């Protein structure tokens, strides 16, 4: 057997079990962010309060639709269902329209959304760097857009 190195078995599962959303009803993962939703609607799809849409994926509800940059998705009763007099935004249906993959663990109430393909289209068309947002080791938020005016080497590595 080849010699193994860089193994950290003690770090595979070092954490104690803790509630995922102790003060909420669901958790959404998107672009490395964890968003706790205080209220969600009943059903198989993830029904969120319309005002929560922006803090999840940056889309803004406008008369012409749910909009992000130059992209607007027209709204309809499927996306904005009314249940017992309360209006919701169907994030699962929205993801379907955007061809945005999602992995759900219903038992835990966690929806993990992948990147929206349309947001990456520019990279595949004219080589424009994709948007991303990460937090550095000093706690600063680093966005691709913040690097405009500078040359950047963006390089990945790992201890493995």
């Amino acid at each position: 057997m080849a010699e193994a190195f860089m193994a950290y078995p003690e770090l595979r599962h070092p954490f104690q079990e803790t509630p995922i959303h102790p003060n909420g009803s669901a958790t959404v993962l998107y672009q490395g962010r964890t968003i706790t939703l205080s209220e969600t609607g009943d059903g198989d799809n993830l029904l969120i309060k319309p005002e929560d849409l922006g803090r999840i994926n940056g889309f803004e509800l406008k008369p012409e639709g749910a909009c992000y940059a130059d992209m607007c998705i027209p709204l309809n009763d499927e996306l904005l269902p009314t249940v017992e007099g309360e209006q919701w935004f169907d994030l699962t249906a929205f993801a379907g329209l955007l061809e945005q993959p999602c992995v759900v663990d219903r038992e835990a109430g966690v929806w993990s959304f992948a990147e929206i393909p349309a947001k990456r289209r520019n990279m595949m068309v004219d080589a424009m760097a994709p948007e991303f947002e990460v937090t550095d080791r000093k706690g600063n938020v680093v966005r691709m857009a913040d690097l405009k005016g500078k040359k950047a080497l963006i390089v990945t590595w790992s201890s493995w």
Partner: protein
Amino acid sequence: MPVWQQVYEEINDPDFVIICAAEDVGGEAVAGPIFDAANPTYIQVVDVDHIISSAFNFVNVPSSAWVDEQGRIVRIDEGTYSKTHAIGEGEQAITFGNDVYTPALKDWVTKGADSEFVQSAEEVTGNIRGHSFDQLKADAAFRLANLFRVHGRKEKAEVYWQMARELNPDSVNFIRQNLTLTEEGSAGETFMQLMGDYVSQGREYYRPLDL
């Protein structure tokens, strides 16, 4: 990779930045000491969720993109070594990396668009790996696994890490990351078997370096 600090200091240009992202699920506990040992002044990110790799469709480390002042990618997805490295000594030594990448990088920082190493948008887009629906879904599964790990739900974490690997078998990042935190480690028998399969299927975990 901490060795980039030397390159960063040699370039010493206020309009050049390095973002160095450690794709370690072990997080700060694993990557932090390695960063600290290099006393880096560039931007350091511990990218547990592989946000950077996903954004640029990388499948392995070290991989990189050069992005110019307008936000356009001018090179992408190459095995990114600052120099030739050697593990071991004498006849047992294993070398990897190269000595041409860093000079090319320095040339680009100095000359910008006039550098011979700048690629056209057409070349760059041709070098960007596809990221299918299933591969995007693998990213979502991987991040879900990481969340469960942090909350002590190890059975669920294992399920979704495995899902990520199955949805995106091209990702060496997922293969190795999943092994790093095991007894066997990321370079043991399982890894050798998986990489043997990977290569025998004609897949490239690094795009051939074209410099």
